[in-house]
Every structure is written in structure tokens, then in C-alpha cells.
């Protein structure tokens, strides 16, 4: 192909439209220091064994790979359900703002949890639960109520009626059910009668009990728990007025009594002070996670160590370039353009020397030892080679000289 007619995808022989890693579709990859991955897996395995479900966190700077790691956890759970018996649901805790009622308090987080579970999942669980016991004598609602372990009798009865009445068959709108599940105010009279509820979700206690009861139902139906992958947990640093209710809700999630609904929360920053106060103070939540503020790293894995040594950065780059490359196309291009003595299919369009240069430049500052920045810089240099190539209609290699001219500009 004529260089002038190439797109960057062709020029770099990418197996995707962009020189990018997508946290969700590339979830199977885990780049960087393998020890961090091992620590994370070890914590998750230990949580399954000790707590029944993962209850831990990730911390790291902007671009360190927190979101990617959350999706990686989901990938691992989907791939190995025998050793990781939990279904993952992803939600972002940001934005949290106590100046705006709809963006604050446990009700806001509760709504996000329910939206992450979604109608499809709830319907599937209710329908599968309905098929479970062949010798069942009680009706569906009664059988569900027996499964629930959290909250008072009225809450259990109301939740069972809502789930059985609205999610078993697709005959009526589930909007009233969702209003109740989210803790929204219902119109007096008709709505509550139709729903068959004897109480509304008035406080955080009722809301968290509802989620934990859904977890009980999921465990009974599928043999698996639920793991909430909570991204951007640093937004909980803004919790002030609603500290008590949110702390208490997380405390119930962390409690040993709950073995069906877990969480992995990812928070921006580094060091012990990065854990939002609403989680860290008082330390009863941390103690349920088996740590204190001193050894908090055991429950909140620090992703800064993903690129701990220069060799980690180089191995990150090597893994990245191979992962986004179409090997067949790269080998063909190298052969067609006579580049075999300058490039390998893995590194194309970079020379080995250029990649050493990327590490040399980015390693200089702690701020640039960062997955997102490394990818951005590689993409920028690759784009520079591509545009020079198009301008001259020749394959321009991203060598050390080109790299220096782009990355050392000020």
C-alpha cells in the first residue's frame, strides 16, 4: 500500500482503530510488575476463603490503571468462576456532591448499585430462583422472604413482593418497582397497594439490607456472590454531613455477616491518607477488612508499584506494543518495505533504541512513570513518524532521533 494512503492503523499495523488500550475490551491484559498482580490475586483468593467474597481496594495515581484493573478483575472472575465465584458489576462513585441532594448520601450510592445490577440481571435471578426448588410448597414471594437475612420483617416481605410481582414475568412496567428499590417516595395509596409493600426504603439501613438480601438471592440461585467494582472512590473524600450513614452502610458491607455482596473500590492518589475518611475513620471498617491504617496496603493494593523499576516500564511497553499489533500485517509490511534489519514486528514502528529512549525520558520523573502517559507518548511519537511518512511517501521509522525531537520539545 502507498504510504500516502495509509491510516495510522495501517502504518503501525494495529489490530484496532486507535493506538490505545481500552479498559473494558482489553481487560484480559495486566501490564507491568507481575508481583502487584500476584498481591491482588492473593488478596482476592484470601477474601473468597475468609470473607466469602472480595472486600478490598486499589489505589493509584491518575492513569495508573485503576479502571483497567477493575475490569481485569471482572475478566478473571468470568474466566474462572470455580475459584472466583462472584458476578461483577461496575459503577463509578463520582461525582459526589453534598451541595446537590441527588448526588449525595447513601441513597445516591444505593441507586448507582441498583442501576449497575440492572433490570436484566434482577429478572434473570428472580426467574431462576422461581425454577429452583422442585418440591417448593410456599409461593415465590414467601420462598424469597425465607432466603433474605437482612432487615426487618416488613422490609423482607416488601422486597419479596416487589421482586416476585414485577421481575418474574414481563407483563407490566417495572418503573414502580424501581422507584421502591431506589428508595424514592411513592404516591400514597395506589402505588403502595399495587406493589404489595408495607414499608418504603426510608433510610440507609433499609437500602443496604435490600442490596444484601439481593446478594442472598443471587447466592442461593447461582452459587455465586456479587462483587461491586466501585471506581473513583476518591469522590467519597467529599463526604461530610452524610458521614455516619455512608460509613455505616460500608460497615455492613464489610461485616463478616455479609458473605454475598463484596466490593473492590478504586481510589485516586497514594499512601494511607488516600482512603476517604468515611471509610477509614473510625477504623471499624478497616478492621473488618483485616488491616489497620499501618498495613492498609494489604487490603488496598497500591498500583504505583506496577511500574516500580525501569525494567517494569520497558516490559509494560513491550507487552503493550505486542498486544495492539496485528503480527501478520506487521511482518508483511516489514518485508514489503525492506525494514527487516531495522524493525521487528513487535516494536514497529519503533526501533529498540527508541523504546529505550522512551524509558530513559519518562523514568526521569515519578509523575511520568504512568501507564496512561506512556501510551500517550508512544502514540504521539508513532503519529509523528506516520505524518512524516505521509509527507515524504516513505516509511519513516520512529528511531531515537525522531523520538528525541518529539519528546524533548519544550
Amino acid at each position: 500500500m502507498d504510504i500516502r494512503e495509509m491510516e495510522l492503523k495501517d502504518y503501525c499495523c494495529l489490530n484496532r482503530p486507535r493506538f490505545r488500550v481500552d479498559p473494558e475490551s482489553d481487560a484480559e491484559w495486566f501490564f507491568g510488575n507481575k508481583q502487584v498482580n500476584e498481591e491482588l490475586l492473593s488478596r482476592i483468593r484470601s477474601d473468597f476463603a475468609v470473607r466469602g467474597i472480595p472486600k478490598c481496594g486499589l489505589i493509584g495515581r491518575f492513569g495508573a490503571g485503576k479502571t483497567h484493573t477493575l475490569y481485569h478483575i471482572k475478566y478473571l472472575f468470568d474466566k474462572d468462576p470455580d475459584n472466583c465465584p462472584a458476578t461483577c458489576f461496575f459503577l463509578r462513585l463520582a461525582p459526589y456532591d453534598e451541595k446537590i441532594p441527588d448526588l449525595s448520601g447513601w441513597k445516591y450510592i444505593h441507586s448507582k448499585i441498583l442501576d449497575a445490577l440492572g433490570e436484566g440481571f434482577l429478572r434473570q435471578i428472580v426467574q431462576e430462583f422461581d425454577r429452583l426448588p422442585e418440591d417448593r410448597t410456599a409461593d415465590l414471594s414467601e420462598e424469597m422472604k425465607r432466603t433474605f437475612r437482612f432487615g426487618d420483617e416488613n422490609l423482607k416481605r416488601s422486597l419479596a413482593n416487589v421482586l416476585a410481582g414485577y421481575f418474574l414475568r414481563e407483563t407490566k412496567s417495572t418503573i414502580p418497582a424501581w422507584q421502591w428499590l431506589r428508595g424514592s417516595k411513592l404516591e400514597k395509596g395506589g402505588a403502595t397497594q399495587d406493589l404489595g409493600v408495607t414499608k418504603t426504603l426510608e433510610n440507609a439501613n433499609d437500602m443496604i439490607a435490600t442490596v444484601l438480601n439481593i446478594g442472598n438471592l443471587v447466592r442461593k440461585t447461582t452459587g455465586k456472590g456479587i462483587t461491586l467494582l466501585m471506581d473513583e472512590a476518591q469522590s467519597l473524600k467529599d463526604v461530610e454531613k452524610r458521614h455516619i450513614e455512608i460509613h455505616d452502610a460500608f460497615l455492613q458491607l464489610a461485616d463478616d455477616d455479609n458473605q454475598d455482596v463484596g466490593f473492590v473500590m478504586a481510589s485516586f492518589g497514594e499512601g494511607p491518607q488516600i482512603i476517604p475518611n468515611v471509610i477509614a475513620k473510625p477504623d471499624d471498617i478497616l478492621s473488618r477488612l483485616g488491616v489497620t491504617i499501618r498495613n492498609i496496603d494489604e487490603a488496598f493494593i497500591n498500583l504505583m508499584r506496577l511500574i516500580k523499576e525501569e525494567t517494569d516500564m520497558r516490559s509494560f511497553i513491550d507487552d503493550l506494543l505486542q498486544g495492539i499489533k496485528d503480527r501478520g500485517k506487521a511482518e508483511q509490511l516489514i518485508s514489503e518495505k525492506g525494514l527487516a534489519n531495522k524493525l521487528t514486528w513487535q516494536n514497529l514502528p519503533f526501533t529498540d533504541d527508541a523504546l529505550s529512549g522512551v524509558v530513559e525520558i519518562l523514568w526521569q520523573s515519578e509523575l511520568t512513570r504512568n501507564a496512561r502517559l506512556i501510551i500517550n507518548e508512544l502514540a504521539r511519537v508513532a503519529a509523528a513518524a506516520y505524518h512524516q511518512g505521509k509527507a515524504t511517501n516513505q516509511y519513516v521509522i520512529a528511531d531515537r532521533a525522531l523520538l528525541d525531537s518529539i519528546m524533548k520539545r519544550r
Partner: protein
Amino acid sequence: MFFERFMQAVEVTSLVIVSPWIQSLDGEPVSLKDILWSVERGKVPTTIIMRSPQKEPLNRDAAKLFEGCPFITLYYNNDLHAKIYVCRCQPFGFALLSSANLSGQATRALEVGLLIEGKGAGRAIIEELELLGKEDIPNRAGTKLRQFAQARPFD
């Protein structure tokens, strides 16, 4: 409206302007010089894609202004018809998807646009629009690089 808001934005980390025709906007409430003053003051990494001034003489003045700014990466694409404006800033970015070029004519003509706030579901849209302007259109065959920004994004 987009650029009035851009002028007041804080901690701007990226500006993307995709518009086939761009004029100096002299005499308008916000001129191109005002925009460039904000870009230089905030050292805002800026990506601009427009049609080549060789093909579109209306773009000549704007191209001259852009070529003097070290924070601007400038591309030409003569097939361009999209109009997209993206600003990434604190606490959240915003974008304008519009029928209007960045020209004086557009301020008087009948145009429509959709201003997107980068919070909630809008955040992913802003990120996509930014990538569209910073990577997808620049890395197409018909796009030519005119100038690379001199500033590194992490300076």
C-alpha cells in the same frame, strides 16, 4: 457560547477545534486572538483541524495565527465537514457538536448545536469527541500535519 465558556474555564488540559473554515473573528465578542491568548496563558495543548488555506483562502489569517503558537498542533484535511469543539477542564469538560464553523458568518447564520457537559453519561461522550479530534481524524489518510505543538503535555 463555547469559547466564552472556554475563556473562563480553569485548569484546562486540552482544547480541540475541528472546523472546516476558521476566521479571525475580529469584531466578534470573542476573537481568535482572544482564544489564542487563553491558550498561551494556560499553556493549553490544543489540536486544530481545518481545511488547508491553499484550498480555502478564507482560512489564511487563522492559519498564520496558529502557526505562531507553540501549544497548537495543526492539521489540514480538505474533506473535513464536521464541526466539533472540546474543552477538557476542571471540574468537568464540555463540548459543542454543531453545524457552525468557527467563523464570523456562523455567529449570524441560522445554526444549531448541542452543548454537552462532561459529567455523568456526558463524560464518556466528551472523551470520545476529544479522541475523534486528537487521534481519529488526524490519523486518517486525508489529513496532513502542518505543525506539531512544541510543548509536552506533562510540562
